[in-house]
């Protein structure tokens, strides 16, 4: 069973993605902000993280950098999910340590492909 941590503060989006991914057979755990995400990862490391960037308390970029700084999570696959769709936003996300990047509204098959790609790599 592949375990995915979904970090998303928007309730609607969190609910929607959780349900859709669960239908595809993933086990989903959710966090509403960066700090909660770090705690959950420390408690039990998932196989992959889907990370929104505009998060309260600790934002997505800072959370990614912290994960990359920690040897235990430095190679944890992270996909950025964001409504920021400018070219420099992707660069910013990758610079913070994300392995991949996808913009909202989410192209679900593409997201699945990206997840699959990262998990088999």
């Amino acid at each position, binding site marked *: 069973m592949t375990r995915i941590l979904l970090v998303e503060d928007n309730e609607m989006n969190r609910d929607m993605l959780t349900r859709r991914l669960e239908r595809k057979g993933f086990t989903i755990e959710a966090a509403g902000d960066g700090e909660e995400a770090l705690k959950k990862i420390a408690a039990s490391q998932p196989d992959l993280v889907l990370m929104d960037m*505009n998060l*309260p308390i600790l934002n997505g970029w800072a959370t990614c950098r912290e994960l990359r700084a920690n040897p235990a999570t430095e190679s944890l696959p992270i996909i950025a999910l964001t409504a*920021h769709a400018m070219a420099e936003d992707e660069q910013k996300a990758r610079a913070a340590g994300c392995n991949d990047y996808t*913009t909202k509204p989410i192209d*679900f098959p593409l997201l699945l492909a990206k997840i699959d790609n990262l998990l088999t790599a």
Partner: protein
Amino acid sequence: MISLPRLTLRLRLSISIIAIVALFTLTNLTYQLSSENRNLRLDNLQNAVASQLATVTIRQLLENQEKEILVLDALKDGGKEQLSKEEIQNGRSDLSSLQAEIRRLKPYVYAETVDSYNTLLAGYDALHDGWYRFYVGYNNNQTPSTIKIERAFANTMQLLSDFESLEILAAEQQTLDLQKTVRFTDRITLTIYLFTIALTVSLGYLLIRYTNRSLNELNLGTVRIGGGDLKYHIPVNNDDEIGDLTIAFNEMSDKLSNAMAQVQQSKEKADQANRSKTNFLANMSHELRTPLNAIIGYSEMIIEDYREEKALDAEQAVEDLARILSSGRHLLQLINDVLDLAKIESGNMTVFNETFDSVDIIEELMSTMAPIAKKGDNLLVLEKSQDIPHLYNDAVKFRQLFLNLLSNACKFTHNGKITILVTYNAKTRHAVYHVSDTGIGMTPSQLTRVFEAFVQADSSTSKKYGGTGLGLSICKQFVELMDGSMDVTSAEGEGTTFTILLPTRAPIQKRTDAIPAENQQELSLDLKASSSSETTSVSEEDALGRVLVIDDDPESRQLLLRHLEKENYIGLEAGDAKQGIAIANEQQPDLILLDLMMPNIDGWTALSVLKESPSTRHIPVILQSMLDEKNLGLDLGAAEFLPKPVDRQRMATILRHLNPQDRRGAALLIAPETESRKLLLEELTDEAWQCMVATSMAQVIERIQQKSPDIIFIGLGMPYDSVLEILAMLNGKLNGKLNDGLNAKLSDNIDASTDSTEDALASLATAITAPIYVVSETPLGSSQSRRLDLPADQIILFNKDDKSNLEKILNLS
């Protein structure tokens, strides 16, 4: 204190030249003096030589005379005969000539030798006497003693020698003196000469050095300033022409520097605007994507559910659909707000002024908001000072502004109090509105950004409280459009207070809305009462006019008809464009309300048909649409634009402005688009004129064919030649000068009865009976005025400072 004259370069040069000329003259004078002395010396020498020669001659003569006397004496001693009379006469004449010879010495006598000369004369006189008596007494033997004569002769010779040597001495002395003088004057001449040369050279050097230095400084300055150092000031050392040049140059560089600063500033402003535009776009994209994500995600999920024919959970589906709906609504709100902002920013947001009671609107809003306030357990309170004057402002914006502020207050306050305090500042004639809540408040840093677009106090705020983050930005811009100001104070956890100031300036008195605000209120109450009974309809006599409503949607048609009835208009209705055009042709309404979105023939087509047909093109058409199509609509010949959903008050004002029964007439304004034209248009509209605008000959013809104007204004930035040409056309004096395009336009539009364009033009001109006024911002020259061939009172001055001429004309007509 004597003020010295300015030491200008010209003065310097003049002084130098005068000094050099003076010295030169002095040199010449001393030279003259010395040469005179030289001549004097030469004369002196000549004198001395002549004197020597004369004394030699005298000595010779004396010695000869002595010899002759001695011979005669010897002869007498020898007993010789008597002397003849001639011989005596000869001797005496010899003596006389000798005397004359001695007297001829006189001119050569010097001051030093006068005494010696006189003694010589006395000595010779004695000798002469002796000799004379010798001759006289010779024949009588009574001659004086020769010894005595001898002695006198020797004495005279001695005296002559003395005189001679004294003469030489004196001449030598004189020569010596002269020599001294000559040497002295020579020295003076030389000195002055040398001094003149030295002065010339040094003056020249100083002048060159001085001008060189000043010019060098100037040159250095120009190089530095030219190199971009615009702050550099060339030092002003001299109060002269170069100083003036330097000052002028510094001023020039200052001006240049200012201009550069301005350019820099506007560039920065443009860059800033560009950056904020980019930012706005990025934010916009972000804000649009977030609700879209939910909409697309949930829709896909629901579709999947149906496709896979799983056991459908109806409850879950409704929940998901509700989420889609709410996201969609949020998106719509966002788009509306963004459009509002864009409209404001592009300057297309117009303010629609009317007189209204702001407290009434606030009370109305409070009753609207009451359920929402109650939901958050909030108390909604209105406090006001006794007399709040009515506002002459945009009531729709006022309503939107306060609705926004109140819903914000409700959103961020729970179990608290929301207070609206209205006061009046009689001094500044402002109505002051405070909207305070006891909600979550803001931190100082949040407070500084609260009016920026897409900024909510916290990014999580929108998730918790909703909203687009554009509301306050729009509010602020609205207030500014309304000529007011908006401010905010807040403390975190204690609440927020928005303060709005709006001017209560009295509306300009207009013929068309002479109804005072209170009466208006009564009137609307009356109408409300009357409209409640369905049977009431407006009678033909009382009606303000007949308005045709063309709209495919029966509901909105009915709404408009109800509004029209309330405003005392007779309503005519058409359910599609075809029917509408037919009714317009048959019934000739005063105004047409035309919906743009209709099946089959849409509003745009209907508009062009109405505007092209000679029987309907004079009827003002008011376009209606959800989208803002105002500019396009006006370009295509519409008279006004009324956004949907229709605001009754706004509609009433537009109808009032356009209704021909209320209007004073049609004014044609021929001028390019300028501030002044806008001003004139505003004046005319305020005076209830229906305005048409043309910027070219072609448009003038087109407008006149649409509707014959009652008054024509031309000018305000129109090229003078174009004015002349159009005037000639309007007066029927333009013969065959139209280009093909205009010809085509004429032949298209003129009745078939006239076949030549010249005839067409002539008939057009005769159709114009309206007075024509040439309007200029600045007074025209007399020759320009003459060439216009118009009476002087039809050439008027009009600008933002002087509207008196226009007012005079409008009062006359």
